């Protein structure tokens, strides 16, 4: 497979972890000191901000990735307060307010279906399945906004290789937790719960498709899909399912939550495509969060060089 990206950086160029961590501590300490001096010890507001309630623990040994974009990442605050996570409410700010009710430990992910090694993974073991990488990806929402997000995770194909799919496995189906006690909006039938998403096998095997466990070097905040979510950067954001409890390998194309909700508007593929409009709005442009003026949306969200071959010969207007 042709991946048009620079080779990985040499290991000699990577700063030693000890030094890196010390530097972080030094910076943190000195910036706190500076802030204390500047504000007259007005730190209460900084430390007591709402996101701190779900703040994660630092993930160690995270590698850089050649797949990362060098565009400036969207601020942590925006990534963690502007969310579409309907299980916690359909407003953008409600997931950050309500997702505290999600219990992410203990957590298991059932891997089953047309595979040789069906297994129930404990989340902490799953996080050690493959070395963690930082992947700074663009995220394009079907609603017409976008972000640049420094995810931490590992390739989905690492899990798939362990599971050893049989020849009958044509698709992968992902399912979010179903528990109205933890996810209060599941009591309302906004969507047909639990949330389900899917990928074709070759999409799932693509090195850009990742399982994400962290954000900005820390474990994932609940509102962003803790403890583990999918990220498929060339598809609209809703394909990147959150808080996964089951990954099933199947022969037939899965029915996703949005396809069930509105089949005319949401197809199985949902690749970012500026030329195929959503029936109710244009997809030609997008607003990058933090910017005022809209920018052109790129084919496959700018990942065309890496993924366009997956859809060769397919009419993307039909398979939207």
């Amino acid at each position: 497979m042709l991946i048009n990206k620079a080779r990985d950086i040499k290991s000699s160029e990577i700063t030693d972890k000890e030094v890196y961590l010390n530097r972080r501590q030094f910076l943190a300490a000195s910036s706190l000191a500076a802030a204390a001096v500047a504000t007259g010890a007005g730190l209460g507001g900084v430390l007591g901000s709402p996101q701190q309630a779900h703040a994660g623990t630092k993930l160690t040994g995270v590698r850089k990735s050649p797949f990362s974009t060098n565009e400036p990442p969207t601020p942590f605050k925006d990534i963690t307060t502007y969310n579409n996570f309907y299980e916690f409410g359909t407003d953008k700010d409600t997931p950050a307010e309500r997702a505290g009710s999600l219990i992410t430990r203990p957590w298991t992910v059932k891997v089953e279906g047309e595979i040789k090694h069906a297994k129930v993974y404990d989340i902490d073991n799953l996080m050690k399945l493959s070395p963690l990488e930082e992947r700074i990806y663009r995220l394009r929402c079907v609603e017409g906004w976008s972000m640049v997000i420094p995810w931490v995770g590992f390739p989905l194909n690492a899990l798939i290789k362990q599971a050893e799919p049989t020849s009958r496995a044509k698709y992968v189906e992902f399912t979010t937790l179903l528990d109205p006690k933890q996810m209060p909006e599941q009591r309302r039938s906004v969507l047909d719960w639990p949330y389900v998403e899917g990928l074709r096998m070759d999409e799932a095997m693509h090195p850009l498709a990742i399982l994400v466990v962290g954000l900005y070097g820390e474990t994932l905040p609940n509102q962003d899909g803790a403890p583990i979510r999918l990220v498929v950067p060339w598809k609209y954001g809703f394909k990147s399912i959150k808080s996964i409890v089951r990954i099933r390998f199947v022969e037939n194309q899965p029915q996703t939550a949005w396809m069930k909700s509105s089949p005319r508007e949401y197809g199985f593929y949902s690749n970012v495509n500026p030329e195929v409009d959503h029936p109710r709005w244009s997809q030609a442009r997008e607003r990058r969060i933090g910017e005022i003026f809209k920018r052109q949306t790129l084919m496959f969200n700018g990942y065309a060089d890496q993924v366009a071959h997956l859809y060769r010969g397919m009419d993307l207007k039909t398979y939207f």
Partner: protein
Amino acid sequence: MTVKSFTMIRVAVFLLCLLPLGRLGWLGYTGGLGANPIEFITRSTGTWTLTFLLITLGVTPARKLSGWNSLIKLRRMLGLYAFFYGSLHFTTYFWLDQFFDMAAIVKDVAKRPFITVGFSSFLLLIPLALTSTRAMIRRLGGKRWQQLHRLVYFIAIGGVFHFLWQVKADTRRPTIYGVVLAILLTYRLAMGLRQKHSASAPPASPGTSRSPAFQSLAEEIEFEKPLERIR
């Protein structure tokens, strides 16, 4: 109630109606508009437009049910506030969202039903705002004025569909607006039928040849008169 104390109410309502705008200003000043401020402003001005349309449509039923006839004196102001927030909503789209990209706007209006219906409703509001003055009521004549201002029913229906067709899956809020509007329209329909029924009965006195609807409008305009004196 004295004329003076009603003026106080009028001023209070005027200031109250500015609160949604004040809130946006305050949130903008303190950085509270969230990650996508333009979307926030668009939604806020849109929902307030619809809210003011429904409040305006609620004035007459509220007046009839409460018997507090002075309420009618607030109707023009409330209607103009609906137009005011509608203008802010449209300006946000035209300027901040599309940045005067005429080609994109024309395409949006022509191709996207929710924008078509929203844009049409806004256009229809303009003649109503322009003819809201007493001078225009006199110039048009009560009956024609009232016929023109019946457009507000279509505007409100258009506004609800504009909202409904815009949301992705959660239709709760537009449905609430739709239900309230349906109640208000049903009330009017019921009133209209009752008036028609009583109109078909022999007239109580030979002098009343005007239609009952016109009578009620004349009544309503009459209520605004004391105000004129204050101005």
